[in-house]
Structures are given as C-alpha cells and as structure tokens.
C-alpha cells in the first residue's frame, strides 16, 4: 500500500499526538508515584538563609576604647583658605601619585591561592546519610536551636585579616540527637587553602565545644539529625 503525502502527514500528526499523550501520562504517573513516596519538594526550600540577626556578636577584640569624635568634612585635594587675602592656588598637587589599592598590596604574594579557580571541587554529600530523605529547610527556618548552633560556629571562626578572603567553602556537620558532632566534612573547597583551613578549624572548634557542652537536639528536630547540616561560609 502506498500512502499519499497528505495521508502520511495526517498519520504522522496523529501518531505524534498519541505518543506525546502517552509520554505525558507516563511523566504524570511517574511524578505521582514520586509524590506518593515522598513529600513534594521545592528545590529552593532546601536552601535556608538564617537571618543574620541570629548571630551573636563576636567578643570584642583588644581595642583601644574609641571615643566618638565629630568627623571632619572630607578634605578636598585643593585647600580653601579661610584667609580672604590668600593668593589663588595653582593646580593641586596633593593627590597621591599612585592610586594603589591597599587590599591588592596586602594580598600580594598570595598568588598561590588567588590564582586558583574558586568553586566546588568535590561531590556534594548533603542529604540524608543513607540517601533516603530530602531537605527540610522549610521545617527548620528560623529555628532557635539551629540559630544557636550557627552562632557557636561563627564565634569560633577566625580568619587573619592579612589573608585573601576570596572563596566560599561549604562545611557540613553530622549532628547527633544528644547534641554532639561525631563528624564534620569540608563539602566544597573554595580554592583558597587558608580559607578552607579556617573553616575546618571552625568546624573542629564547634565539634569540641559541643563535645564539652552538648546541647540535646529538641524533639522536633531529632528526625532531622540523620541529615548533614551544611554551612556556606563567607568571610564578610
């Protein structure tokens, strides 16, 4: 049997519609199955930003007590005399000859770190330890227990000011129901070895702090302790 061009187009169109419908049903069925097995997931709900106000103020450094002064007006390059008889001024010459970025100067010799690409270099390990559960950001956003945990982490995070602050490493902890932290991991390296090192030190400090003074996880959070709690660490 030979089909004409129009017949061929008709069959082709009907066939495509049929296959699309079948595939759509398959997708719908698969989604329904997935939804039945697990609660619906909003990919963005997994990402939680706890209000910075939760962070406790870091202990004051040893700083000379600073009295408040009335700040003077910024000085223009060319002074304006209070003496009305003063001669007009020539082209100002008091601007710095070299407009040097102090931060760049401070970070000179940091090439080993700064030249490295910044970003994830390891595979994600977040999620349930056994891989059976999804995120729970919605349920824990603003939670005071996690807020205090974050504050403790921040309190122990020190990073020398002369080092480059480029990079955003991610560190994760495994929190036990009794409040101890049996393990932690640097999930994403930043490419800045010293910054990564400082995050590991902070996680270790948190682990030590919770070892000495474990704060049991509240009942509503206990089921969540099967999952990694991760921190995306930015210097400032």
């Amino acid at each position: 049997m030979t089909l004409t061009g129009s017949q061929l187009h008709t069959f082709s169109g009907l066939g495509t519609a049929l296959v699309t419908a079948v595939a759509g049903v398959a997708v719908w069925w698969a989604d329904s199955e997935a939804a039945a097995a697990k609660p619906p997931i909003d990919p963005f709900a997994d990402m939680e930003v706890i209000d910075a106000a939760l962070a406790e103020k870091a202990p004051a450094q040893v700083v000379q007590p600073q009295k408040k002064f009335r700040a003077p007006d910024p000085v223009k390059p060319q002074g304006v005399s209070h003496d009305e008889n003063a001669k007009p001024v020539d082209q100002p010459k008091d601007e710095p000859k070299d407009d040097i970025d102090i931060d760049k100067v401070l970070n000179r010799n940091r090439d080993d770190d700064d030249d490295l690409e910044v970003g994830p270099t390891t595979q994600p390990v977040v999620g349930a330890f056994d891989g059976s559960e999804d995120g729970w950001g919605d349920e824990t956003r603003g939670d005071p227990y996690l807020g205090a945990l974050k504050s403790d982490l921040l309190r122990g995070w020190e990073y020398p000011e002369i080092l480059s602050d480029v990079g955003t490493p991610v560190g994760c902890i495994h929190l036990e129901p009794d409040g101890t932290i049996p393990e932690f991991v640097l999930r994403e390296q930043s490419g800045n070895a010293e910054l990564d090192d400082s995050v590991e030190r902070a996680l270790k400090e948190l682990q030590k702090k919770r070892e000495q003074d474990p704060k049991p996880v509240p009942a509503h959070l206990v089921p969540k302790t099967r999952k990694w709690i991760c921190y995306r660490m930015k210097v400032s």
Partner: protein
Amino acid sequence: MLPNEGLVMRALLVIAALAITAPATVATADDGVIIDVSGAKRGRYPIAVPVAVDSDGAVAAEVAAVASFDLGVAGLFKVLDPASFLADLGVEKLGIEPAKWKDVGAYGVIKYRVVATGDQVELEARLFEVSKGNSAVLTKSYRGTKADLRKLTHAWCNEVVKYYTGEYGFFGSRIAYVAKKRGASQVMAVDFDGANPYGVTRNSSTNVLPAWSPGGGSIAFTSYMRNNPDLYVVGAGGGRPKKIASYKGMNTGASWSPDGSKIAVTLSKDGNPDIYVISASDGSILTRITDNKAIDTSPAWSPDGGSIAFVSDREGGPQIFVAPAGGGGAKRVSKNGSYNTTPAWSPAKGARVLAYTTRDGGSYDIVTLDLNSGAMVRITQNEGSNEEPSWSPNGRAIAFARTGGGGSGIYIAPADGNGKAVKVLSGSVTGIDWGPAPRP
C-alpha cells in the same frame, strides 16, 4: 516500513527520554539544609616562633626573642605563647608537623637554626604556612658577626612581612628623640625596639625637634648653640652639624620634602611665626606657605609631596590645617576638641591620613584622621599623656612619647587602634621622629 519511520522513532525516543528523566531530576534533589554564614572574625595572623632546639642556646633564644618582638609590634601578627606548643621540636627540627601547630591555633610557624662559630653566626630561617603542609614557603640564610644577630633577625622578619604584604617591615629602622642630659637637651637615636641608643648631638646647648632625611643619612634639628633657635643638619651617626638656616627668630620644626631637596620649617623672621619652604642645601627661602597674623608651626610634608600640614591658632585654639606645598590657601582638617597639635602624615601608599596629638580632658592622646573619609581612630586613651606621634616607615605603627601611665618613654602602638602600646625605651623624652626603613 514507513518512509519517515526513522524520524518518528527519533521523536519517540526523545519524548521517552524526557518522560524518564523528569521524575529522576526531582528524585535527586536530595540536599539537606545549607545555611549561609558570613562574618568571620578578622584578626591578627597567629604565628609561632619556637626557640630552635638544635642551635646554640643563647643565640637561639635571642633570635626567638627579637623575632617575637618584631612580629608582635608589626600590626599584622599575633605571636603565640610558646607554653602552648604541642609539637616535638626535637623531632621536627627545621620542619613542622602541621596538625600539631593547627591544634594550637597557628597559621604560620617560623623555624630556624643558628650556628655560632667564634665571632661568626649563621642563621637559616624558614617560614611555614600550616595549611600548606610541611614544605617551607620562605627560606633565607644570613651570615654575620654575633653583634649583627639582631640585625640579621630583623632582616629575616622584614622578609616575613614582605611575604604576606608585599612590603618590607620596619624592623631595623631607628627613632630619633630628645633627652635631657646634664642640663642640656641632646638629639638621640635608638633602634625601633629600644636597642642601641646613641647620641647624635654632643654639645652643651639645647637641641630639639629632630627630623630624619628621607634617605636616613641625615637628621635636621633646631639648636640654640648660637643663642638663637637655628636649623642644623647632622649625619645620622653624629658628627659636626651644618647650619642650614639662621634667620632672625625661630628656625624650627623641620620637615623634609620626600625628595630630600627642601625643608618645610617655621620662621619668625618677620616677627610672626609662619611656614616656609627652604632649600635643604643652603637654607634659602623657596616658598612662603602661610602669611597670617596667627601662629603657624609644626609643618609636616605629605609623602606625595603635594601638601603640608601644620598647626595654626588662626581660628582660636591650635588646630591642624593643610595647605598645598606650592603655596596657597589652607584648610582646617581637625574638628575634634579645641587643642590639636604635632601632625604627622602616614607614609602608607595611597593613604591621606594624619596622626596628631589631641587634648582630652587633662591629658593628651594620639588620634589618626583619614582625610579622605573623615574617619578617626583613637590610638591611646586613659594611659598617661601621649604626644608627638610619628609613623613607622610602612604606616602600620605609630611611635609617640608618653609621660605617666606605665612609665615615661617611647611607645609603639598599632596604627589601626587595635592592641596595646608597647614601651620600647624608658625615660623622659620628646621630639619623636621615626626614621626610614633600612635598605634590604
């Protein structure tokens, strides 16, 4: 077979693939919570300077002591307490076991070996960054006499500062000052850490207000040797002074131009103190900076050469003004309080920051003022009376004279206001002026 069967099959495969992968995308969204954290405490760089164990005990201890002091006042480092160290130094020798140093909070570790043979010493020094393992990131060797040991250690510490900041430290520089001796006031100089003080002037007159030349080879000062406050220049090591300016009345408060060819000075040859620029070689007047009925004194030449700060009471009490170095109108920059004197420019590149003395109640304190932002930082408070600030060659520390509050003398404090001042020389001193950094 249909003629377009291949096309249909490909379409089916694409749709099937979409149908299969869509649920899988959802299934792998398996992340736990990720919390954004920002605000690390930014502080000094923790560094360990353990005493070398496989070296001559006395010289090894001196190297550690000098290096610890240098790095401690650099305004960059926090030198860790040796009592906290966990590492087995005898096993480590010139290397490190990073975990042991990480456990005590060190980011950097300095190791060295110093060998004394007769009058000679040989110093091999290494810098480790704990995060980078047990390979040294900086290694240097020095040789000299035992008398040079402090100098060699300063040189090493300057290299350490350069490694982290790109600029040498101020270790090995000297500070000029005035001390009273047997009824006379003499210009003196001392290593920045208080070692090796010596007299620059040796006469029975009053010698005041020393000012290092930019190259560090000469010191200008005012002396009453001829019964008038005239301006002289003498070699930094002492010797016969050369009279530069002896105009009638005051010839005081010298401040060198950055190229060393000119000196800003206060002259009262016409009866009223004003600021002038004179030739550093013959004292001839080049430019009159101020012409005001008020008293204008204490000129300070900016590092870029374009401005001169000075003190004037033209608006009442003494305040800091800034005028173009080529002459012209001046603008008041100090706004706090009613008494501000002795301005000094930060030599830090790109900075326009002045340190000066401000009266605070019954005492005097040191503050800095950023002329670009207006930000002020207090350097001293509630610790005696502090006057005459002078910046370190790299702008990271400020020396000043203190009376009371821990004992009179020369003190050094971090220029960022963080940390306490350290006394480097005891005694009643005035006229502090920090000289340039030694050549590497």
